[in-house]
Every structure is written in C-alpha cells, then in structure tokens.
C-alpha cells in the first residue's frame, strides 16, 4: 500500500494519469460532436452514451478533479507556486466542517431539485394535456370521434399515441413456435401480455442473454396462421413500440411477415428496429426476404406499412395471403433486453386522424369544431396536448 502511495506521489506518474483521463474526455467530446453529423453517427460507439447516470456523475466528477489536479501540478511545477499548510485552529476546523456540511447539503439540494424538475410530471405540458374518452363511434367501429372541451378548444393539438389506449391493439399475440439462442435458462426470456397502469395492453418481449460475449442471441415466436389472411389494397401493418437500449448498442427487435404472392411464391418482409441508429435495407441471398432496418427505437416509435405496396416494391409481385407472423427480440448475448409493443396489428385500414395518415408517435392534428376523427383503430382514450 505504501509502495502504491509512493508510486502515485511521483510527479511523472501523476502527469501520465492526468493525460490519460483528459485524453478519454477528449475522445468522448469528439465522438459526441462527430456523432451529430448524420454520416458519422457511428462515432457514438466511441463515446459513453450508454452509461448510467451514476457512472456519468462519477466520471464527470473525476474529470473535474483531474482538471483541478492538473492546475495544481502546473502551478507548482511551472510557476513554483506551492500551498503551505499550517495547523488550523479549533475555530477554523469547526468553520471548515460547517462549510463542508453546508456544501454537502447544497449539492444534495441541487441534485434533488434537478431530479424533481426533470420528472415528466414536472412538465408544464401536463397542465394542458388531458385524456379524452370517445364521444361517438360509427356502427362498424372504424371511426371514433373525440370532442375537445370547449374551454380547451384549440384548432391545433398534438396526440401522443404512446399514452393513448386502444381497443384490440394486438392482432398477433399467440404462442407459436418459440426459437431462441444465447439465452439464459430458467425462463428469463419470454413474451407476455402486460397491462400498463393506464390500461394499455401490450406485448412485452424479454431477452435475457447467457452472458456469452460476442455472440448474438435472440428469443423469437413464429406463428403459422391456420387460415391465411387475404391481403387487400389497404391491409396495413401498424406498429407502436419501444426497445430498451442494451449496454453495448446491440439490441434489436423485429416483426416478420410471411406472405404468398399471387403466383404462389413464398416471400418474407421483415421490419427490424435497433437501439442504435441503423437505416438500411437488405435482401436475403435468394432475394425472397427483404429486411428493413428502421433506425433507433429507444423512444416510442410508430410505423404503419401498406403491405401490398411494400411487397410490390420489394419483390415486384403482388401479395395474396399472409401465412405467418414472426416476432422477436435479441442482442449480443450478454444483455438483458425488453421490447414493448403497444400496437402490433394487421389492420384492414391504415390509422388516420382527422383524415391524415399518421406517420409518427405524436402527430399534430387540426381538430375541426373541437372534434377529432380517429379511424383505422378503435381508441378508448386519447392523450391530447
């Protein structure tokens, strides 16, 4: 221990450690700056975007201490300034203790304030956000109307689909053929039907890796439809999902549709969502499967796809029947990953609000006469800001 302390007292050793810590900080800053450029977003891998708040606080505190330490060393070694200490009096000691106590309580107070002020409940939007129950629904249930209160009537409003409640949001939840790889034994990977505190029904997908570094693991469910589903002009896949990020940016979740073309060819369309930003399209070697990699899904994301259009664009052929659905979650196998699907639905119609096709989680809408027209899915509660 004494040897280690003596070693650390060495001026050169101190400079090496200072340079090392500051070099890492520079890497972090440069990586973050470069990652902001779309073409260079991969630089985020060199940074520390995935560390916890506690680690970040410790890390930044270490950097701050290093800077103070460097200043002290430079002052001493270059400018020959040294701090000479003398034995403090009892009064001075007491003052220092009081100062430290005050400083600690101040830091804790600031921390608590920051925590409370950054909570979602502290958002001023809450004051004007509200749940609206349906006012009227058409006979066939395709269109639901909502009336915004007179006092809060606004021509423009914002919906939040991730906080809204839908009727029958999941059209493909049943246990099919489960496949897995790189998972921990003991049922830690699973699919379950969950209900949120506000009554949202969702599929929760859990992947718990077996700790094997460098291996991709997954947990998937394949459902072969007993009765193939006819694909028409407006058959739409609607997805509203969120993926918890992994520790090493390797998490993903996907939905795959197996389809029969008009000439009885079997094709697959896969939509895959990662925790890191990846936008790409890939074909299998036999060009019978196309995979769309659609960016990061660590926040709620909403997508809807007209199956016929996507199929034709992918395979230059028309789809006739949907014969199977597969979905899953995975990551490099030393991770525990959760994906939640609030909407996972094959719908006969796309989701439209006030006549406009919805393209994001928080669509801006124009309510006509305080009335919101919601079609494609039956909504039970709408969250409107």
């Amino acid at each position, binding site marked *: 221990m004494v040897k280690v302390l003596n070693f650390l007292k060495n001026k050169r050793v101190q400079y090496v450690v200072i340079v090392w810590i500051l070099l890492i900080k520079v890497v972090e800053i440069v990586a973050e700056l470069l990652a902001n450029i779309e073409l260079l977003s*991969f630089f985020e891998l060199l940074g520390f975007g995935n560390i916890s708040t506690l680690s970040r606080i410790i*890390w930044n505190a270490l950097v701050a201490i290093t800077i103070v330490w460097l200043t002290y060393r430079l002052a001493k070694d270059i400018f020959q300034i040294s701090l000479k200490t003398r034995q403090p009096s009892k009064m001075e000691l007491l003052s220092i203790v009081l100062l430290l106590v005050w400083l600690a309580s101040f830091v804790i107070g600031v921390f608590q304030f920051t925590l409370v002020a950054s909570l979602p409940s502290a958002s001023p939007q809450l004051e004007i956000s509200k749940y609206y129950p349906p006012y009227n629904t058409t006979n066939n249930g395709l269109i639901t109307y909502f009336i915004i209160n007179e006092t809060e009537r606004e021509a423009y409003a914002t919906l939040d689909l991730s906080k809204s409640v839908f009727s029958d949001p999941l059209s493909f939840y049943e246990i099919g053929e489960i496949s897995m790889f790189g998972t921990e034994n003991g049922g830690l990977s699973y699919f379950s039907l969950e209900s949120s505190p506000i009554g949202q029904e969702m599929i929760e997908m859990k992947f718990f890796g077996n700790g094997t570094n460098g291996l991709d693991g997954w947990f998937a469910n394949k459902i072969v439809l007993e009765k193939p589903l006819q694909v028409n002009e407006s058959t739409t896949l609607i997805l509203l999902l969120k993926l918890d990020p992994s520790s090493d940016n390797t998490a993903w979740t996907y939905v795959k549709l197996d389809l029969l073309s008009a000439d009885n060819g079997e094709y697959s369309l896969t939509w895959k969502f990662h925790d890191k930003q990846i936008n790409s399209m890939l074909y299998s070697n036999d060009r019978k499967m196309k995979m769309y990699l659609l960016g990061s899904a660590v926040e709620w994301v909403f997508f809807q796809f007209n199956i016929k259009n996507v199929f034709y664009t992918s395979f230059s052929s028309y789809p006739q029947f949907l014969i199977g659905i597969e979905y899953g979650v995975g990551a490099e196998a030393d991770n525990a990953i959760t994906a939640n699907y609030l909407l996972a639905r094959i719908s006969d119609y796309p989701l439209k609000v006030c006549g406009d096709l919805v393209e994001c989680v928080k669509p801006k809408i124009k309510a006509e006469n305080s009335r919101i027209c919601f079609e494609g899915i039956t909504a039970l509660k709408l969250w409107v800001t």
Partner: protein
Amino acid sequence: MFKRLILLGLLVRLVLCSWTGHPWDFEVFIRVGYYVAKGSNLFGIFPAESYHNEGLGQPIFPYVTGLGYLPAWGLYTALAYKIYSLLPVSPYLYYFMLKLAPTLGDLASTYLFYLLTLTATGDIKKARLNTLTFFLCPFIILVSSVWGMFDSIPLAFTPASMLLLLSDKPFLSGLCLGIGIYIKIVPIIYIPIHALYLNSKKGVKEALTHLLTTLLVPFILTMVPLVLFGWETSKAAITIFSQTQKTGEVLTYWNLSVLLNDLFPETFSRETLNEVFSFPLVRYFWVLGLIVGYLLYHKLQRNSSELHDLNLLLKGYLFATIGFLLTRTFIPEQFVLYLAPLIVVQAGNLPSKRTWGWMHVWVLALTFTFINLYPFAFAYLVNPNLWYIFSYWAFTKPYSSVRYFARFITAVAFDLLLVKILSEMVEKHGESA
C-alpha cells in the same frame, strides 16, 4: 537437420489444418466466406443470413455473427470459398484453404524472425534456433493450423516493417505496417514506436510522413471494397468501433467478472458488470497501458545510445504489447503471438542469465487455451458431439465454476509473468544505462 525440422513443422500443420477449427471462430469464417462469396455485405451479415449451411461446418450454432475486422480477412475467406467452389470435392478442401493463409503466415513470420535474430546477433546458429523456437512452438501451431486464427499474418508484417525501417526505407516500412493493420488492427499499437524512432533518427517530418502512410494504407484498402461492392461505411465503422466495447473475458485478470457472475449472479449481475466495463476508465484502461509502454520506450531510446537499433525497436514493441495485454479488458489467446519478439530479444542472453521468457509465455497461454476450450473440441468439424460434450461441462454448474476459477488463476499467472518480463526488461535497461 534445420530444413528437416522446418519441413516437419510444416507437415504437422498440413496434417492438422483441414479437419480442425475453433468451434466458434472457424465456424464464423466458414459462413462469412460462403455468404460474402455469394454476394452478401461483409459488414451487413445478419442472423437470417449467417445461418448454417448444410455440408459446410457444423450446425452447433444456428446463427453466428459477422467479423469484427477490417475487410481483408473476410475477403480472403470469400476467396477461399470461391477457390473451393471451383472444385467442390469436399468441404475439407475449403477448411484447408481457410487455414492456408495462417500457415503461410507462420512460415513468413518464421523467416522474418530468422532475419531479425541474424541482424541482432550475427550468429546463424542462434538465428536457426530462434526460427525453430517459433515455428515448432505448439501454441503457434495450435493458433494457426488448429484454431484457424490468422494473427501470424499481421505478425509477419510487423518485423518486416521493422527491418525496412532499419534499412532506411521508412515509406516501405509504413506500407508494410499498414498492410499488417489492414489484416488485423492490433499492430496499430506499434505506430507510435516507429514514429518515436524516426523522430529521433530523422526528425519530425519523416516521423509524420511514416505515420500518415501507415494510417492511409488500411484506410484506402478498406474503402476500396466498400466502394466497389457498395458496402456501407457506417456498418464497417460500427464493426470496428464495437471492438472498444468488450467486457472482461479470456486471457486477462478481468475474466474474474465471469467467475463472480457465475458464483454470485445476484450481486454481480450482468447489468452491474456491464456498468463496470462501460465505465470510461475501465473501457479505455488500455490507453493508459499503451501510454506507459510508449514512455518506457522513449526513456530507453533516450538513454541507450549503445543499444542496437533493432533491439531498441523490439523492446519498444514488447513494451507496447505488454502494456496493452495487461490493461485491455478482452484479450483473446491469439494476441500472445505478438509477444514473439521476446524470442529475438532474449537470443543475446547468456544461458546463465536465464530470464522469464517466451517458453513460459506460450506454456501458460496453451494451458489457458485448453482450460477455456478442451483440445478435442477443436475437432468439432469431424464430430459435433465433441463440442456438445464440452459445452455441457463448460456451462453447467458446478463444473463451469471450476473452469472459470481455473481460467482466472491461469490468466492471473500469465499477467504476473508479463509484469515480471516487463520489470526484467526495465531493470536490465536501468543496469545498462
């Protein structure tokens, strides 16, 4: 006799290479070669594509990941598949093709170590002895011809680059080191050693030119296939950068994390350990190791004008390698090959002054390898049950705990040996200075 022994080493390699392989790494090479040869993106291989192919390799892992290297090795595996597909008599021909490059890498490295020792000592007997020490080393044979790892190829380029540097050909030296980096990125850690050496001999301009040449070569060689085949740059970068995000595993004391997780999964959960390994100072600890290695070299260079330039550079290489091996959280066994300059460094030592050296290094590395993966599992291509039996014992408690414990102890012994070698080199330098 010398030539016969070389032929014997070659024969042993050829006998072993077509039916053995590391159950994970070699399986990845087999599949990547197949898919890239069929037109897949080397950096875009995803589970649905890297599925096992009937007749090639074994289905012990239904899916495997892609490669985490620059494109050189992936392209070679594709070439190997293309050659095999011209005459697809047996998949063993494909496995042989995959191992051919590492075997040639062994031969090239051997020849270069011969030249290095001859330059360092001027003694042909010592040169031959060192050549055999390397070429007949069981660990080297295992890594190249049994495992299927290709580190002997970039390893060959590093002494070649060193010899060119000493022959006053810094551009060719940079080119050579750049190719080594292109094949496997590890030799990148030697660039500062070259730069410091050139700076002291020829000035900062030459050093910077050399640095730039060395970095441009792998960059350009990487960009060519990306542009040619339309592969995405971002995916290539993600593949490479993800190498900085490894948790504690294999031949390092950091593998204690695996043992702790196995013994106390609640306390040392994977989340907690991931948190530790993603902490900046842990994740980039190797940067500190390299800084120390370069400083040691710088000090050696400044204080030892009487030291032969070759010895100086070799020690610089070793400082950087040991600094890296002692601090990185993920050290695959094949990285041990980069310690081979020890053979040459210790060639000049008198037998009476026997030091901790290459033999101790490879014996410990081999012991670790066989604890980590028992020898018969390398024959999984012949019978996949050889893998299944191992994997049952390796991952089932309490056997897994024993294995993880033995791995940890061997890794600590290995790291202590590295510390010992490093301190011996530093002390010896202190004495001579």
